[in-house]
């Protein structure tokens, strides 16, 4: 953003060393609209994360009754009424695509609003800051206490210990909630308490405790600025219409102190609304000055808006000197034309359409998915076998999937080669001339299937053969097609 820079002043502190220590950020507490939104979203996100494993969902006898469960040992994923099998992981691909495009959509509407309000790094850092503020006091207190590090009193030491203990407790509970998604939550909690839980659970809790403590307690804004790829990606995806947290310099400049501004205004001189109080900088969790224009370090949390609004209200000027806006509008206002806001534009509509498309495809796949399934693989070695009476036999490896929670009796038929018969290795009991097998509940079964047909009635080299498996009880049918070949 082109705004005047005081070159002589800046040059002095520049040309620093190869590396620099992090300048600790002491964000000040703030209240206002965006802070309230952030509190609300934080409560919602953390509530969902911590409590979801305890939500129950009745799936019938023998099936887990946890609403959201990643059942790794049995390779199942449960999400309320949905039960996914390993071969259905493409739903996750779909979900990832939808998530990515949603992120693009958010970005084209409001810049990095994901970062400012919903990103776990932001949410937990915010929570940790709240704890810190509660124990050590607000910005000034914390700065003073840190500066007086050399002369630490017992009271201060207690404060530090308390802060880190609470942080660790939050971090520990974060890791604890994580493992609950992989096992029956109430059982696992009992096991964890009595030290009966699997080693892996403790390891994961330890890992997530450590990362939460480290990332939210110490790394904080550095994750957003140095580690996260999203700011770089979003910078390439954004356009001039995206609403970013913006200092409206058309209105703020020329900035000066309140007293001077009033004097100048009385004289009729041009002066801006910004009184250079640095409140927007003080509250910023990444420690930047939004008045320098859009920058990579800004996570769009809107806290500076709240801070500046409070100042503007106090000095009796219009609020939203800082607000969600874009450069176009700043230029338009400078040129005396009214600002325009365009949320519905080709970019956002395209993203919405893409989300709708992928969502529709996933929904369709979900609604039409079968609970009885068959996969057929033709044996290649040998492809066909000649029997002593001159007829031909082909062998197939057939995989049957029973996604229902009970055992089922399945009959297998084929249709294709004339006078063809089917035989299942290990299942000799033929009823009505077709093999029947019992499919265990919620599992897959592999069978070796032999199809035999006389050559005379099947002169072609390759004949399509359809395999039908029928649930005798429910009448559910699944089919697959392969080929019957003669050598």
């Amino acid at each position: 953003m082109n705004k005047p820079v005081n070159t002589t002043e800046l040059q002095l502190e520049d040309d620093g060393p190869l590396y620099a220590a992090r300048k600790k950020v002491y964000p000040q507490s703030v209240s206002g609209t965006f802070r309230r939104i952030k509190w609300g979203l934080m409560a919602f996100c953390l509530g969902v994360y911590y409590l979801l494993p305890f939500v129950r969902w009745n799936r019938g006898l023998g099936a887990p009754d946890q609403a959201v469960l990643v059942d790794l040992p049995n390779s199942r994923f449960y999400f309320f009424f949905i039960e996914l099998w390993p071969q259905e992981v493409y739903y996750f691909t779909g979900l990832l695509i939808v998530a990515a495009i949603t992120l693009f959509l958010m970005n084209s509407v409001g810049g990095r609003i994901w970062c400012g309000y919903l990103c776990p790094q932001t949410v937990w850092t915010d929570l940790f800051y709240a704890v810190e503020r509660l124990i050590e006091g607000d910005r000034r207190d914390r700065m003073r206490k840190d500066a007086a590090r050399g002369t630490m009193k017992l009271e201060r030491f207690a404060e530090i210990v308390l802060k880190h203990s609470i942080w660790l407790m939050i971090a520990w509970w974060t890791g604890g909630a994580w493992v609950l998604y992989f096992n029956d939550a109430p059982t696992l909690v009992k096991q964890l308490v009595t030290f009966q839980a699997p080693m892996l659970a403790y390891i994961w809790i330890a890992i997530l405790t450590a990362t939460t403590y480290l990332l939210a307690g110490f790394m904080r804004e550095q994750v957003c600025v140095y580690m996260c790829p999203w700011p770089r990606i979003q910078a390439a995806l954004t356009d001039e219409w995206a609403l970013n947290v913006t200092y409206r310099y058309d209105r703020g400049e020329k900035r000066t102190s309140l007293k001077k501004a009033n004097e100048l205004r009385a004289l009729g001189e041009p002066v801006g609304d910004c009184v250079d109080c640095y409140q927007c900088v003080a509250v910023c969790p990444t420690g930047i000055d939004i008045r320098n224009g859009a920058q990579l370090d800004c996570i769009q949390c809107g806290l500076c808006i709240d801070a500046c609004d409070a100042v503007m209200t106090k000095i009796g000027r219009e609020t939203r000197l800082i607000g969600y806006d874009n450069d176009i509008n700043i230029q338009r206002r400078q040129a005396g034309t009214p600002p325009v806001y365009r949320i519905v534009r080709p970019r956002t509509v395209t993203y919405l359409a893409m989300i709708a498309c992928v969502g529709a495809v996933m929904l369709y796949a979900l609604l039409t998915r079968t609970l009885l399934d068959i996969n057929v693989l033709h044996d290649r070695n040998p492809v066909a076998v000649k029997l002593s009476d001159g007829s031909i036999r082909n062998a197939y490896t057939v995989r049957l999937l029973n996604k229902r929670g009970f055992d089922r009796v399945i009959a297998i038929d084929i249709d294709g080669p004339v006078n063809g018969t089917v035989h299942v290795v290990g299942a000799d009991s033929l009823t009505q001339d077709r093999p029947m097998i019992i499919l265990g509940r919620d599992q897959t079964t592999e069978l070796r299937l032999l199809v035999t047909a006389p050559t005379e009635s099947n002169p072609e080299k390759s004949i399509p053969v359809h395999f039908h498996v029928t649930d005798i009880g429910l009448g559910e049918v699944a089919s697959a097609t392969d080929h019957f070949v003669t050598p």
Partner: protein
Amino acid sequence: MTEHNNDFDRVSGKTTTGHEWDGIRELNTPLPRWWVITFYLTIAWAIGYWVVYPAWPLLWSHTTGVLNYSSRADVAVELANLEKIRGDKMVALGAAPLAEIEKDPALLALARARGKTVFGDNCAPCHGSGGAGAKGYPNLNDDDWLWGGSLDQIMQTIQFGARSGHPKAHENTMLAFGKDGILKRDQIVTVANYVRSLSGLPTSPGYDKSAGAKIFADNCVSCHGDNARGNQELGAPDLTDKIWLYGSDEVTLIETITNGRGGVMPAWIGRLDPSTVKALAVYVHSLGGGK
């Protein structure tokens, strides 16, 4: 500092490194300290790694590292563990009666999986990796069995082999009717044509069917039976079916009758443990040809 004056970037208020690409200049931004520390830590880590693990190639060997780690040793441990895991299951397989294995889906799956790998290692050179056989080596997928295709018979054959030298091996061989002077050349041609006619194959014009039948009755029925249906006790093939181990054309048949036949299969007992032989028998049986 002063010499960088020209490289000052007005917008950010920082100096640049002086590098410029298409008008884009690189800001002189210091690295975060933790980043630099991490970088040095990785160097320290790498040096530690050299010390602990095998790392440096020497002329004829390499540094072994203080841990004496080797991936081969790891593999050996893994293999031993695998054997241990398999142990119980293979014991269960060994204990189950042969006839019951195919009725139990879990045991059948285990036997087929185990049988398949063992087959690939030991049997595939002759019978082919899928058991499809070759000329002189029986196809194990079809329903024609020299020594019988029931589970027990297959197991018997695998254990002791054919003409393997093992005392319990299948022994009979087909006589060399021509070489040993039992039949004359023209008799051999006649009986070869007769045999072809048994399985519905065309015969050479002018051959004497009744003469062929007589030669067959005098020389061949003792093994192949009155109806030429073969005899699995003797390993004598069924001559009326459509499957021919060595080929069904006249030339091949003449050669077979002249020189005799007798394929050899090794005895696997002693080379493979009993439960593995069992798995192999089930696998071969389940290929589809079993009776």
